[in-house]
């Protein structure tokens, strides 16, 4: 079983501790990241999202086992929500990871969202850097499945896989609203349930409104230009991600795959669709663009955390300044916006 990707216990131990340090922003995390971000970014990052009950964990398990079976070293980051009251969490995704969790080239880590609304922990991008350093070929990020909030995964992933399931009724409509704009590949899980084919057709129909051509890679021709106006933000994002007929020679139309994560039916085809997308990205020069957007998102997150941090301390000049500002707002002497502008101007530390 142990192939080229197999991990030894000590390496896993070191990696795991580094992830904790980075997640906790504990002493020494900057040094750890400074090394990690200097390692070549090689891992393909696959984001998996979809409404609760779609069987994401089971599908991630099946895909992970599939990729590990082809000799890849695969890491899974399974993100679960945290309690808004205590900040604690019960992370239960391992329960469903029966097929992959024992494989020697698989690393599985449960991550608490730690209050992040986007369904991704603030540290996820940093953790991906650590996994790059540990020479993983692929990182699968499973999100909490909290509907629209999950679109944040699209910023972090090279390929976003959106999982639906037949029979969610109105829920699917609600979830689709956000998710239909982020998917590079769609999967309809529990493909053996009645209505699965109808769900595939429904999603294909929704895709057809924004995309021309056939699922997968299409050569750009005049006939492929749809009537959709290019002005909406969603449309512009799609053009950026999946090709603009005006400037690109090929376009990507997200395919919809029928799959049964439980039985494994359709899993190789789904993995193939993900790889086809990554292949198209690479041929059309998009990976760099994806990574740029990921780093931009992480920079913004890090920047905001760094700016806020001094004000969250219990003591120090910044905390005093903040307390003073609060008093002035309370006393109806200023507005929060004005007070913050003043704080930034003073740049207190």
């Amino acid at each position, binding site marked *: 079983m142990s192939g080229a990707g197999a991990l030894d216990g000590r390496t896993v131990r070191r990696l795991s501790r580094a992830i904790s340090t980075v997640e906790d922003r504990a002493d020494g995390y900057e040094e750890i990241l400074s090394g990690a971000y200097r390692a070549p970014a090689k891992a393909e990052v696959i984001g998996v999202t979809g409404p609760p*009950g779609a069987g994401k*964990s*089971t599908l991630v398990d099946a895909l992970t086992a599939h990729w590990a079976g082809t000799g890849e070293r695969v890491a899974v980051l399974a993100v679960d929500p945290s309690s808004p009251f205590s900040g604690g969490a019960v992370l239960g995704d391992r*329960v469903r990871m*029966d097929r992959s969790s024992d494989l020697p080239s698989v690393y599985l880590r449960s991550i608490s969202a730690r209050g992040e609304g986007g369904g991704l922990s603030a540290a996820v991008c940093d953790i991906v850097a650590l996994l790059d350093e540990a020479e993983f070929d692929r990182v699968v990020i499973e999100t909490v499945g909290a509907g629209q909030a999950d679109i944040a995964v699209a910023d972090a992933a090279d390929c976003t896989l959106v999982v639906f399931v037949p029979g969610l009724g109105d829920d699917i409509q609600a979830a689709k609203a956000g998710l239909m704009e982020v998917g590079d590949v769609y999967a309809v899980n529990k493909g053996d349930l009645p209505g699965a084919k109808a769900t595939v057709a429904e999603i294909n129909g929704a895709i057809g409104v924004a995309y021309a051509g056939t699922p997968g890679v299409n050569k750009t021709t005049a006939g492929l230009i749809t009537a959709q106006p290019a002005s909406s933000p969603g449309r512009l994002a799609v053009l950026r991600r999946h090709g603009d007929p005006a400037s690109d020679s090929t376009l990507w139309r997200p395919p919809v795959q029928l799959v049964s994560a*439980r*039985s494994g039916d359709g899993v190789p085809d789904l993995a193939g669709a993900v790889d086809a997308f990554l292949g198209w990205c690479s041929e059309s020069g998009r990976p760099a663009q994806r990574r740029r957007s990921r780093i931009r998102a992480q920079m913004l997150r890090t920047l905001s955390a760094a700016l806020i941090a001094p004000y969250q301390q219990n003591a120090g000049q910044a905390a005093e300044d903040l307390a003073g500002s609060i008093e002035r707002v309370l006393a109806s002497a200023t507005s929060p916006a004005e007070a913050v502008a003043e704080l930034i101007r003073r740049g207190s530390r």
Partner: protein
Amino acid sequence: MTRMLASRRRDLDMEVPDESAGQRSGPAAELIAEEARWRRETFAPDAARAERQRGFVTDCGLEVKPLYTPADLDAIGFDYTADLGFPGEFPFTRGDRGAMNRGEPFVVSAYSGFGEAERCNQRFRTLIDWGAEQILVALDLPTQCGYDSDHAMATAEVGQVGVAVSSLADMEQLFDGIPLDSIKRVGTLGNSIGPIVLALFAALGEKQGIPWANYVVNLQNDPLKEYIARGTQILPAEPAAKLACDAVEWCIDNAPNWSPMTVCVNHINAGGAGSSLGTAIALANAHYYLDDLLARGHSIDEVAPLLHMFADERHDFFVSVANLRALRRIWARRMRERYGATLPAAMALRMTVYGHGQESLQEPLNNISRIAFGTLAYVLGGASYVYIASYDEAVSTPGEQSLKVALRTQQVIASEHGFADTVDPLGGSYYVESLTHGVERQILDALGMIEEKGGALAVIRDGIGRRLMTEGAVRRQKAIDSGQRPWVTVNQRPQKPDVANTAFRIDPGAAIDQVARLQRVRAERDEARVSAALAAVREATASGANVTPSVLEAVRAYATVGEIVEIWRDIFGHFSPSTEF
């Protein structure tokens, strides 16, 4: 009182009216006014001094009033004829049989098993000698989960929580010198391996030369609750339920006097659901099995008498009585109204119970009285097959001394104090009838919710069951931690755990002897016969036919439990656990 007994149309959906409702007239209104006066003038001044801090709410969530009067019966529209009737007659509230404990008292039963068959056989003989009338074999976890004693998954668990049984040879040893017709009933749980344990008892009867009609086999054979509560599930829920029904169906044709399925509230309640919700989930499971068997073309009058239920309420004495009475009433009505049952046996629910108290590790001898009270409640509620916990059960496999105390406790309840001298002695109590009504409402409401969500399989698949159970378990823990639920020696007059060094030890040689016997069986059996029999099991399983005849043949040929289950795993796959916490 004749006013209360007057026949009145009963409306199940009738709301309990507010005490201050002014529409009532005549004696009821006078009584309500009198009770209000009593509360004000006599009760309140006294309660101000004496009433304890905690709220008076049962574990299943019913509020307990300080006093019950005829007005409470009036408020629920109590109707003697429609609600109670007579023992052994519809709706069977007062008992499933006419004479109840005045005729043949409840069956004194023992759930026992440890180590390997030879040592365990001695224990069975001892129990029978002390007066056990039914033996339910406790199997070890590898056996219950479909692994032979030499399987890697069986490591360290062979013989630990029950006796290891891998083949018919183990059963022969286990019942050596104990003819199956020498005790009232015999059986085991076998929830995930129902057809196999059924076949083992059927083949054992053949070996002992006793016709199936001359002994009674009782199985739990209720796989659906394993997925939410007990955890020995092997296959996905649907095929597991199908196999369980195969065992029942075989009995319809071959051993209609057997009792091949016991639908359990016990583990669901203990896991946190509370007795009313637990009963509703168990009823949904029962409906699932019944629907499967009826879809095979059998009549409800053939099928229903083969099922009984394992009721459970271990926190509250009176709720326990009420639960059993309400459950009999619900069952009778459902069998008649939903399925068109006509035979009394198809409407009269027999019940198994396992007497428990809120047992503690602190001063464990106190558990004897706790368990006795819990058991007494079940007997007063009209249970038929009574098991009882041993006082040291919370700490380890019970030893002989504590088993003996347990059996004697049952015998005391059966014969002393006059507990068993009249039928349904608490019937008609204002409190017990109010509780019976309240519990019945809770069960029916929860069952309605479950049926709306899609029934038994949805409870498992969508994680509803586990979610509700976790919430309930957390609520119970908090009630104990906060002292709201009093527990003597734990949160009242707290003591350190003081379990003496008497834990019963499984002889480490047992597992070695068991594996040796298994390997001897494999070496000596007719391999060609085993292969042919296992091929037939595979064919029957794959074709969807009843697997029991082929399993019986395989068992006769000394095919092992693990070999048969491996075929099922191969065809149906493993269960996929819910991530619901």
